[in-house]
């Protein structure tokens, strides 16, 4: 791997470090702060399970973040992660509560604004809705779990020492689950912006396991988080305590479990798969704030106890942080991108060219979009996304989703199926039939990726997306990932680079 790549990844590692330093306290803070669990035990368990969670289950939430804005240049990824990390670090130093998830979302939107690429409003709405749902859900789960736990403890009539021993064990187990969920859900914050420009490639461990490039990327990010846990989180853990509401160790256990359940729900592809197969609505896989989940659970328990003891002023400052964090990260990212591009001459985004040729217009029409007004722009070539969007808004005034469809179809992204690159398909998740399909179109050039998709779909059914329903969601996502692997191998880079 080139040194430059390592340098660009460093901002993600910095963000990972700060996530480990801050968010580990959400999982083990009360346990360590009340001396129920030793810091060394907490740090080891936390690190191990964050790494496991990130590698095994980290991909789900990163998809949604990728939809919000596909940062397509390492320089841009560096700036986005750096801006988020700087925001988190600055607000932590100022003693203000901060969410890493919100910081990275703000930074991605900053990149979108700078590059001119549209922000997927559907993805943004999903993410913001989840930020509201997360603490509410954590509160509800906290209340239910608290009542159940109190009932069980009263019924069991445990000796005070026995309850203490069980609580310690429970805090460690809950902490392990919480760490797994934190890794699975929040690795997207740390490494999500680097997925589109991932420098790692798949490698196979014998014939039985394939360690994907994305998993390797997440492993690196998770190691950075683990280092943050070991090097800085003790200070944070020991000062976490009764800021919002005094809690007993059993109450703290309830909060950690509630937090862990919520993060797991918003990261579990397995659960999504189960719900999708049952035809039920799925829970969106979105990186959610670990801190907000804890706040939600604590408030839920506090309200159950009558609202006494809740530090409403502290809650107010936390809520303010939810708004200021993404805004600050967005502004910082925009400014830093400007400097990186214009002062340091770093490529922070790869622009694209667009053309509304006859085949493109026909395809857009097939997507259900009225092309009458688009015909005015037929065969005109646009050298940047900003220019194209400006003209579209002037001439056609499309809505957000329609604009996205037009951009997607008109984007020139040349793919040439070369004989000498077909061997690289061995490191992908493509089936034999899918690879055979590619052999059938060797030598062919496609100016747009959708043309390649259509060609492959025409050759074999394994390349065809199923109707866009909840049940088919996972299958279609898998096909999309496979297509992306093919684009990455056979893409022809634009000459201006």
């Amino acid at each position, binding site marked *: 791997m080139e040194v430059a790549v390592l340098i660009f990844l460093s901002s993600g590692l910095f963000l990972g470090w700060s996530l480990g330093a801050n968010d580990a306290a959400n999982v083990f803070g009360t346990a360590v702060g*009340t*001396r*129920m669990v030793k810091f060394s035990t907490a740090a080891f368990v936390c690190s191990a399970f964050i790494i496991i969670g990130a590698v095994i289950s980290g991909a789900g939430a990163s998809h949604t973040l990728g939809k919000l804005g596909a940062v397509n240049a390492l320089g841009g990824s560096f700036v986005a992660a750096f801006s988020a990390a700087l925001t988190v670090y600055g607000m932590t130093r100022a003693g203000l509560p901060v969410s890493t998830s919100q910081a990275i979302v703000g930074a991605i939107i900053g990149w979108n604004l700078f590059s001119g690429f549209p922000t997927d409003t559907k993805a943004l709405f999903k993410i913001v809705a989840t930020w509201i749902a997360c603490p509410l859900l954590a509160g509800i789960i906290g209340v239910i779990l608290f009542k159940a*736990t*109190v009932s069980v*403890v*009263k019924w069991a*009539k*445990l*000796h*005070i*020492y*026995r*309850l*203490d*021993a069980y609580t310690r064990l429970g805090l460690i187990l809950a902490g392990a689950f919480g760490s797994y969920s934190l890794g699975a859900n929040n690795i997207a914050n740390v490494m999500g912006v680097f997925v589109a420009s991932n420098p790692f490639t798949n490698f196979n461990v014998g014939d039985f396991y394939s360690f994907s490039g994305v998993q390797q990327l997440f492993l690196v990010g998770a190691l950075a988080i683990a280092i943050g846990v070991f090097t800085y989180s003790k200070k944070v853990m020991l000062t976490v305590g009764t800021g919002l509401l005094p809690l*007993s*160790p*059993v*109450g703290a256990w309830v909060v950690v479990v509630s937090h862990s359940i919520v993060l797991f729900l918003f990261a579990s592809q397995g659960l999504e798969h189960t719900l999708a197969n049952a035809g039920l609505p799925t829970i969106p896989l979105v990186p959610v704030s670990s801190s907000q989940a804890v706040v939600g659970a604590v408030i839920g328990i506090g309200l159950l106890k009558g609202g006494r003891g809740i530090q409403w002023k502290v809650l107010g400052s936390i809520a303010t942080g939810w708004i200021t964090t993404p805004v600050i990260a967005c502004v910082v990212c925009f400014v830093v991108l400007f400097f990186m591009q214009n002062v340091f001459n770093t490529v922070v985004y790869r622009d694209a060219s667009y053309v509304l040729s006859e085949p493109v217009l026909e395809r857009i029409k097939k997507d259900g979009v009225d092309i009458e007004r688009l015909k005015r722009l037929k065969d005109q070539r646009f050298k940047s996304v900003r220019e194209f969007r400006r003209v579209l808004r002037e001439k056609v005034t499309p809505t957000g989703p329609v604009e996205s469809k037009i951009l997607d179809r008109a984007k020139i992204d040349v793919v040439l199926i070369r004989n000498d690159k077909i061997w690289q398909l061995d490191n992908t998740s493509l089936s034999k039939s899918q690879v055979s399909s590619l052999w059938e179109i060797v030598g062919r050039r496609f100016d747009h990726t959708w043309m390649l998709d259509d060609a492959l779909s025409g050759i074999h059914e394994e390349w065809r997306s199923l109707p866009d329903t909840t049940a088919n969601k996972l299958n279609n996502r898998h096909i999309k990932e496979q297509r992306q692997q093919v684009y990455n191998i056979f893409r022809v880079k634009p000459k201006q680079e």
Partner: protein
Amino acid sequence: MPKITLFSKTKELESQTDEFCNTVSEGALAFKIGIHRYLEADTTGFEEKLHHVSKLESTGDDLRREIQRRLYVETLIPESRGDVLDLLEHTDDILNACDGAMWQLAIEKPELADDLKTDFANLAESVAEAVEALVRALRDFFRGGESLTDDMHKVGFYESEADKMGHKLMGAIFSSDIDLSRKNQLRSVVLHIDSIADTAEDVSDMLAVFALKRAI
């Protein structure tokens, strides 16, 4: 091969705490029987109980120190450790007071008129009942039970009864014809015995607060 059981250290500590409660309870019972022996002029029986109470007092001290050591060394119950150790220390004061009262009788050998013996025996009974109720409340506190309030109420009741007996006895003592020096001696003995019930009530009040603090 040594048998390894989960939470073995916790179980040991539970046993020690139970043993401490047993020691206090036994101490109060031995004290009551010792008073009866003294009132019956059964010197041998009284001395036997005297040594029994002294031994229990010493055992109580050892158990309390061991529990304290283990709670600190093994950093157990960090939230409640201070409260639990306070409870144990003040409960141990009951054993100290029983032992002290017995030794006062053994050394000073106060003479009681026959008409005072019944009330004296009743005072000892009330004190022993107060301590018994406290020990039940203590066991309940450690096990997170729900009959704590009932037992604490009984402690208060028996403490009041002990106070009434004490006042009645002192009234009878100072109304009698005996010398002032004997009156003071008997007053001191009555107050010493009554203070055992007062200590039990103080511990009961502490229990009430700690039980609230312990609520999840």
